[in-house]
C-alpha cells in the first residue's frame, strides 16, 4: 500500500518482462525457436499474473478500481468477440466491438471533462459534482447504457432483404431519434432531479452557505449537464457515423441502389422549389378564381364585390398556387428554379425530384410527361413515371444557365386517349436538388442541433426544479418537451380543432375578441363551441411558451440526404440556444434567487 511497496511491485514487473524477453531472445539467437516462444509466453503469463496481484493489492484505491474495471471489460469484450467470430455471428461481433469502443470513448471523455473542471471555481465545482452524480446515482447511467447498447444493436435489427438505401435511412432515422429522445429524457430527469433532490435532502444548505451565488449554482448545474451532453452526443454521433459506414459496406440490392445511397442519403443536398410567378399573372388568376368561388358558394366565400376577409384571401391564394402546380390535358407549365449551383464532388448530377399525381386512373399506373430543360428536351419522347411515386431524374450540371433551370412540363397528347390532369404537391412535389456538401459535416451540424435542444431542456428542467417538486417539475418539463417536439403538428391541430368565427387573427386580437366570442357562444347556447374555443386559446397560449423544436429537427433532413444548412444551425443557435435557453435561465434565476431554501420548522 505504501509508495515503497508500489515501487517494488513495479520493479519486479519490469524484471519479469526484461528477463522473459531477454531469455527468449537468447534462445532465439541459439536457434531454439520453440523454447524461445515458450519462454516468451511464460513471461507474458507471469507479467499478467503480477498485474492481477497488483490490482488485488491496491484494490481499495479508486484508480486501481478503474483500471480493474477497464481490464475486465476488455477481457469480456474479447471473449464475446472471439466467440462470435468462431460461430460466424458477424453482426454480433460488430455490435459488441461498437458497444466496447463507445463505452471506452465515453469513459475517456468523462475523464477529460473531469480534468477540465478541476480548477477551483464554484461553477466548475458544481458542474463536476453534477457529472459525478449523473454517473454514480444510476438515473442518468440507465439512459447512457441504453444508448450505448442501442446504437450498435440497431443495424442488427435491419432486414438485409431491404434496399440498402432504406436500411441506411432507417438506421439514421432511428439512431438519431433514439439519441435525441433518450438524451432528452435523461437531461430532463437529471436537471429536475439534481436540484429538487438537493433542496429536499438539504445538501443545498451546505453549498449555499459557501461563497456561491445562486446564479453560479444554476450555471454550474447547467454546465455539467451541457458537458455531459456534449460527450454523449459526440459518442453517439461517432457510433452512428461508424455504423453507417459499416452498413454502407453491406451488399446492395443493385448498382442503382448503391448509387442512391451515395447520392441521395450520404450527401448534404440543397433542395430548391420553384417560386410561383409574382405580379400581374398571378393576381389575374387570383381575381378570376375569387370571382368564380364567390359565384359558386357565396355562403362560404362571401358575396361578389364585398371586402375579402384575410382567411378567404389565404384560402384562394393557396388554391391558385395548387392550380399552378397542376397541368391539365395537353397543357404545359414552366417552373423556374433559381440559385441552382453545380453539385460538389466528382460525377455528381443535379437531381430533379418529382412526384406526379394523376387526377384519374392511368393505364398500368404510369403517367407520361414531356420535360424540357432550358428549352432543350430532357429525352426524346415523353418520360414514363409511376403514378404517385417519387422519382429522381438526373440532370447534368452544364444545363444550368445563370443559376437557373427552367423546367417546362407538358401533359402530352396520347394516342387515342387523353391523360387526366397531373398535379404536384405544392410543398415537395417538384424539387431541384444539388449536392452542397458531405455526410460528415451534415451529421456534425445535426448533432450540434440536437445538443442545442438538450441545452434548452437542461435549463428548463433546472428552472422547473427551482420552485417545484420532482414529480411536478418533471411533468411540466416533459409536457413542454413533447409540445416542442410536436409543435408544428400541435399548431395545426389546434387551428382545426376550433375556428374563430371571424377567421384567423393575431394573438392580441384574439385575447381581446375571445371573451366577446365566448359570451356570444354561451348566449346562443353553444356551450360545446365555447369550450372548444377556450381550449384552443389555452393551447395556443401554452404553445407561445414553447420553442418550435419541430423547425429545428435535423433527423428527417439527414436521413433524406438534405443539407442541414449553416443558416438553419445559426437560427437554432439564436432561437433555441440564446433566446429560449436564455429566457428560461433568466426566469429560473429570478425565482431561485428569491427563494427560501430552508423551511421554517417549529
Amino acid at each position, binding site marked *: 500500500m505504501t509508495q515503497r511497496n508500489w515501487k517494488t511491485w513495479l520493479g519486479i514487473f519490469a524484471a519479469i518482462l526484461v528477463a522473459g524477453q531477454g531469455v527468449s531472445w537468447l534462445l532465439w539467437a541459439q536457434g531454439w525457436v520453440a523454447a524461445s516462444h515458450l519462454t516468451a509466453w511464460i513471461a507474458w503469463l507471469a507479467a499478467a499474473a503480477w498485474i492481477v496481484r497488483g490490482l488485488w493489492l491496491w484494490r*481499495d*484505491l*479508486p484508480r486501481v478500481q478503474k483500471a480493474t474495471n477497464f481490464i475486465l471489460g476488455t477481457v469480456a469484450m474479447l471473449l464475446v468477440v472471439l466467440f462470435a467470430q468462431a460461430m460466424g455471428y458477424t453482426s454480433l461481433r460488430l455490435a459488441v466491438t461498437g458497444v466496447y469502443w463507445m463505452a471506452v470513448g465515453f469513459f475517456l471523455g468523462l475523464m477529460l471533462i473531469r480534468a477540465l473542471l*478541476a*480548477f*477551483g*471555481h*464554484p461553477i*466548475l*465545482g*458544481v458542474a*463536476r*459534482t453534477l457529472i*459525478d*452524480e449523473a454517473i*454514480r*446515482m444510476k438515473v442518468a447511467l440507465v439512459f447512457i447504457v441504453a444508448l450505448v447498447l442501442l446504437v450498435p444493436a440497431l443495424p442488427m435489427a435491419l432486414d438485409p432483404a431491404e434496399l440498402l438505401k432504406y436500411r441506411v435511412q432507417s438506421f439514421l432515422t432511428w439512431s438519431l431519434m433514439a439519441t435525441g429522445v433518450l438524451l432528452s429524457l435523461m437531461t430532463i430527469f437529471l436537471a429536475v432531479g439534481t436540484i429538487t433532490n438537493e433542496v429536499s*435532502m*438539504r*445538501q443545498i*444548505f*451546505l*453549498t*449555499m*452557505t*459557501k*461563497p*456561491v*451565488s445562486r446564479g453560479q449554482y444554476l450555471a454550474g448545474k447547467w454546465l455539467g449537464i451541457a458537458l455531459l451532453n456534449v460527450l454523449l452526443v459526440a459518442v453517439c454521433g461517432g457510433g452512428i457515423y461508424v455504423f453507417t459506414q459499416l452498413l454502407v459496406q453491406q451488399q446492395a440490392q443493385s448498382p442503382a441502389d448503391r448509387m442512391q445511397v451515395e447520392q441521395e442519403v450520404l450527401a448534404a443536398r440543397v433542395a430548391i422549389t420553384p417560386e410561383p410567378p409574382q405580379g400581374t399573372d398571378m393576381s389575374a388568376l387570383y381575381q378570376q378564381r375569387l370571382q368564380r368561388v364567390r359565384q359558386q358558394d357565396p355562403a362560404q366565400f362571401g358575396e361578389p364585390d364585398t371586402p375579402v376577409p384575410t382567411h378567404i384571401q389565404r384560402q384562394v391564394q393557396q388554391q391558385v398556387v395548387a392550380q399552378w402546380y397542376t397541368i391539365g390535358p395537353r397543357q404545359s407549365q414552366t417552373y423556374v428554379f433559381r440559385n441552382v449551383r453545380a453539385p460538389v464532388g466528382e460525377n455528381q448530377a443535379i437531381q430533379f425530384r418529382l412526384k406526379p399525381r394523376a387526377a384519374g386512373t392511368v393505364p398500368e399506373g404510369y403517367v407520361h410527361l414531356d420535360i424540357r430543360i432550358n428549352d432543350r428536351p430532357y429525352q426524346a419522347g415523353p418520360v414514363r413515371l409511376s403514378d404517385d411515386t417519387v422519382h429522381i431524374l438526373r440532370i447534368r450540371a452544364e444545363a444550368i444557365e445563370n443559376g437557373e433551370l427552367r423546367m417546362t412540363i407538358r401533359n402530352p397528347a396520347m394516342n387515342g386517349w387523353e391523360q387526366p390532369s397531373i398535379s404536384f404537391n405544392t410543398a415537395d412535389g417538384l424539387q431541384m436538388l444539388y449536392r452542397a456538401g458531405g455526410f460528415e459535416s451534415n451529421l456534425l451540424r445535426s448533432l450540434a442541433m440536437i445538443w442545442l435542444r438538450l441545452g434548452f431542456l437542461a435549463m428548463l428542467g433546472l428552472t422547473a426544479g427551482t420552485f417545484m417538486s420532482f414529480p411536478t417539475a418533471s411533468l411540466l418539463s416533459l409536457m413542454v418537451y413533447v409540445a416542442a417536439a410536436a409543435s408544428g403538428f400541435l399548431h395545426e391541430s389546434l387551428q382545426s380543432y376550433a375556428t374563430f368565427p371571424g377567421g384567423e387573427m393575431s394573438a392580441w386580437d384574439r385575447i381581446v375578441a375571445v371573451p366577446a366570442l365566448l359570451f356570444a357562444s354561451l348566449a346562443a347556447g353553444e356551450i360545446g363551441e365555447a369550450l372548444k374555443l377556450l381550449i384552443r386559446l389555452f393551447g395556443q397560449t401554452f404553445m407561445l411558451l414553447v420553442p418550435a423544436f419541430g423547425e429545428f429537427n435535423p433527423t428527417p433532413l439527414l436521413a433524406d440526404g438534405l443539407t442541414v444548412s449553416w443558416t438553419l444551425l445559426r437560427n437554432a443557435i439564436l432561437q433555441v440556444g440564446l433566446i429560449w435557453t436564455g429566457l428560461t435561465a433568466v426566469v429560473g434565476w429570478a425565482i431561485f434567487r428569491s427563494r*427560501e*431554501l*430552508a423551511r*421554517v*420548522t*417549529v
Partner: protein
Amino acid sequence: MTTFDTTPRHAPDHSADTSELIVKCVQLTKMFRDFWMRNRVKAVNAIDLEVRRGEVFGLLGPNGSGKSTTIKMILGLLHPTAGRIAVFGHHPRDVAIKKQIGFLPEETYLYRFLNARETLDYYGRLFHQHRRHRKQRIETLLEMVGLDKVANRPVGEYSKGMQRRIGLAQALINDPQLLILDEPTTGLDPIGTRQIKDLILELKHRGKTILLCSHLLADVEDVCDRVSIMFGGKVRREGTVDQLLVQESLTNIQTSQLSADDIEAVEQLLQQRGKHVERVEQPRQKLETLFLNIVHEAQTEGADTSGATGGGPLAGFLRGEEGAAAHSGQADEGEAMINRLTEPAKWDDDTVESPHEPAGATKTPPPEAGQAVERDAVLDDLLAGSEPAPAPPKKPTSPPEPEPNDEDVDTSVLDSLLGDETKQDKQ
C-alpha cells in the same frame, strides 16, 4: 482529594475583542405563513442578538424554540419577516461574507455518491481554492477528524458519527472566522463530543468566533462565553455563563482529603465567624472523564476498532503554538498542521481579504501561560493514546482533570482557615 474551588469556571478570555460585532440581529422576526399568506406561527419573535469577535456564543433552547430558524436566517437560508441581520456588517445573503463562514448543520447533508476526499474537494472548490492548496488542507482535515483511513469510501456508507466528522471537516475547510455549529455533538460518541469541545476552545483561542446552537446544556456550559436562552421564539435570558450560573449566596472550597478532625476544626472556625458548613462531600469525577479514561486505556493496549480512528491527530492539530514547548515531535506536527490550515491562502485563485478582519487576526493571541499548559495537559492525556503505536509520552498519562486552573485557585482563604498544619500535611 477534597477540592475547594472558588475560581470562576471560565476565566475571562482576554483574546475576545468585545468591540467588534460579527453577528448582529435587531428585532429579528420570522413568521411562518400558510398557503393563503396567513400568519401561522411566530418562529422567531423580535429577538436581538450580538455575537462578538473571538467569543463562543451559545444559543440555547428546547426543541422548537426558534434557534435553528435564527441560525438559518443568519446564514441567508431563510429570509426574516421583520428586523435586520448583519453578518460581518453585511447582508446575510451577501456571497462575499460566506468566505469567512463555516457551517455545520444539525444533520450532515452530504452527497452520498462522493467519498470523503471528494466531498472536501468539492467544498474546497467553492472557495476558489487552488488544487495544491486544497489537497493539502483536505489531507490535514481528514487526519484531524480521523477519517484518513476510510477517505475512499462513499460517505453514504458512513455511520452517523463519521458523517458528523466529515461535516465538521467541511465546515473548517476555509479556515472560517465565524464557525456556526448547529447541534454539533449530536450523534457523536463521548470521544467525538470531547474533541468538538476541545476544537471549539482551541479555535476560540486562535481568535475565531463560534456560534453554537444546542440543547445539550453540558456542552454549552463547558465551552461558551455567553449564552442566550430561547423559548417560544423569544430570548428569555442572555449573559455570560458566569453571570447566569454563579450562586452568589454560596462558596465552595476544594482541598486535599480532610480527616473528621480537620472538618470539625473548619466548622468551628466558620462558626466563630457566624457561618456554618452546609455540606461536606467527596467530589465525584465526571462520567465523561471515566469513559474517556477507559477508552484511552483500551487504545494504549492496542485494541482494534473498525470505526473512525480516535483523535490522536486532533490533539496535535489543536494544540497550536501553545503546545509546542510541552510536547514531542507529534506536537510540532500538530502545530505545523494547524498553521498550514490557518495560514493565508496564498494559492487561492481568488483570495478576498475580509475588510473586517484586523491584521493578524488569524494568529493566536498570546494566552496566559497557565491556561495553555493546563489545556494542553488535558488534551494530551485525552488524545495521545489513539495512535496505533504511540511514542512514550513525555508527560505521565495521568487521568485528566476536568476542573481546570489549579494554579489560579485563590488559596489564601484556605490557608488562613487551616493554618500551617495543613500545609505541612500537604508536604
